[in-house]
């Protein structure tokens, strides 16, 4: 590509003096047009992304009669905050919330512990066959979960784990290829001298892991915790096949169930429940925005 580059010809500077004024104003015109187009496009796209939020919040505050009005009402009158209480009264939103935390909290702990351990084994301990086995870890990244879910269901049924949270929680204690990959990347970036110094002092590998590496890995572990939290909070397929007792439903399953079992007239408080299910994720995002963006970018770039 570089070979095709041609240098500007000698003639250009000579012409410049006579055309300077008209050209600079033309350049400015283009620049203004460019930024009008740029921000116009951005605002138009933003409208598409924001619209569902506005609609969701507006619907969650409507009175039943306002739901079917056309053209749509944007600001309900009166604003009906009561829908949010109705979500707790009409459908057991408090139970769903507790259940979701019962799944999510242990899953986050499991993911952080297991993946840190495994990633350390792949990233900072030298052993024969290591890279070869790591290749297998990466290969399982593309294994679709739909291939394995029937035998998994049968295993958990055999163990009498159906209608418990164990099928959702226990696997998180056994490592996930995506998180192993992410943490290994991070561990390998830490200087080797840290471990060498401790090894000279006779520290065991496990001790180096817990005393030296883990404290340094806090930002990466936070990314894992964050992603696992979102994953467990949002999970629908797992609860759908492993939980049939309504008292055990998680938020996702509970809301989907409300949507299909209560009709049109109840849509406002179902939307209120939906808003509340999204809220923790939004709050989390604003607290950990940088972590999200860096974590996501990291996974994509190194892939």
């Amino acid at each position, binding site marked *: 590509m570089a070979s095709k580059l041609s240098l500007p010809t000698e003639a250009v500077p000579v012409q410049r003096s006579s055309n300077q004024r008209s050209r600079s104003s033309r350049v400015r015109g283009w620049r203004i047009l460019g930024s009008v187009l740029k921000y116009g496009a951005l605002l138009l796209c933003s409208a598409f992304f924001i619209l569902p939020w506005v609609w969701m919040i507006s619907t969650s505050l409507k009175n039943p009669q306002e739901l*079917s009005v056309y053209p749509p009402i944007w600001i309900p009158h009166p604003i009906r905050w009561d829908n949010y209480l109705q979500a707790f009264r009409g459908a057991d939103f408090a139970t769903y919330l507790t259940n979701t935390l019962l799944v999510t909290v242990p899953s986050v702990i499991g993911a952080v512990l297991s993946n840190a351990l495994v990633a350390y084994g792949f990233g900072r301990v030298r052993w024969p066959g290591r890279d070869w086995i790591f290749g297998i870890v990466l290969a399982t990244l593309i294994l679709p979960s*739909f291939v394995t879910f029937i035998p998994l269901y049968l295993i958990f049924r055999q163990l009498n784990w159906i209608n418990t949270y164990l099928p959702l929680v226990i*696997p998180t204690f056994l490592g996930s290829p995506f998180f192993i990959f992410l943490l290994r990347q991070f561990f390998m970036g830490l200087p080797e001298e840290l471990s060498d110094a401790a090894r000279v002092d006779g520290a065991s590998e496990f001790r180096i892991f817990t005393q030296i590496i883990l404290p340094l890995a806090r930002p990466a572990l936070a990314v894992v915790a964050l992603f696992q939290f979102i994953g467990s909070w949002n999970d629908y397929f797992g609860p759908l096949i492993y939980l049939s007792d309504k008292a055990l439903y998680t938020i996702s399953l509970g*809301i989907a169930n409300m949507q299909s079992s209560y009709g049109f007239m109840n*849509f406002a408080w179902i939307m209120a429940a939906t808003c509340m299910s999204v809220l923790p994720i939004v709050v989390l995002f604003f607290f950990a925005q940088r972590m999200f963006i860096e974590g996501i970018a990291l996974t*994509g*770039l190194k892939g």
Partner: protein
Amino acid sequence: MARFRTITRRESKSLITGLLFILPWIIGFLAFRVYPFFASLYYSFTFYPILDTPKWVGFDNYRDLFSDQRFLTSLYNSTYYAIFAVPLGTVVGIALAMLLNMKVRGLSTFRTIFFLPSITPVVASAIVWLWMFNPRNGIINFVLDLVGIRGPGWLGSPEWAKPALILMSLWSLGGAVVIYLASLQDVPREMLEATDLDGANAAQKIWFVTLPMISPVILFNVITGLIGAFQFFTEVHVMTGGTGKPADSTLMMSIYLWQTAFQFFKFGYASAQAWMLFLIIIAFTVVLFRISGRLVYYGGK
């Protein structure tokens, strides 16, 4: 030859240490990946009603699949969805990332607006979009009405249900935008300046410099997007109550697979479907890698 020498005592000690660290993964890998993988292959050759034991039936399940109209419909629907949603998502994702990469004021606000939908619970967004697509008082047809277009029946119409799902899928592409944006910021500035000197216009710069430079990231996103598209499940399950209505027009392979297993309780037949899904995903991935061989630029690596 050297690879097969007996390992020294020091190496065997490090081997044990290494294996102890990865022990959780080994257990999970064997119990929750290897065993289920082969078990589902075995079940796919059996007749297996839920409360019975599997009986070997050879290729019967696979033969049945190709005369099963609903399976063929689901194959068509999933392919339709993937073929439109993945390229569209890729083009829009790159375009948005490029917009954000043009020295925009308020970059982090726009990035938040684009990104947030991608981490909202899928069930929540499915319910909101279901409500937005309502043909009579939904907001999408209201917006179309404003510009003088009479909106279709969307999820109530067999022709428009899949386009509706594809449109909705664009809402959650923010994760890809963030990845593309990060890779765009890694394109060396000198390279773009060099083409400036050469008098290249904006389109040429994008086509000859920017896109080749980010092509490995595009390939990664296309492949993960495709794998995801063929496993597209939650939105449809929530929006149609697990039915794939209207008239099976949103019956995806994953939905039919779920129905076969958990509504008709035919685990053998469902496993055969799972393997077809797997083979299709593998085939698409291999084809993409082949095609991309010449198109993707891996830099010095």
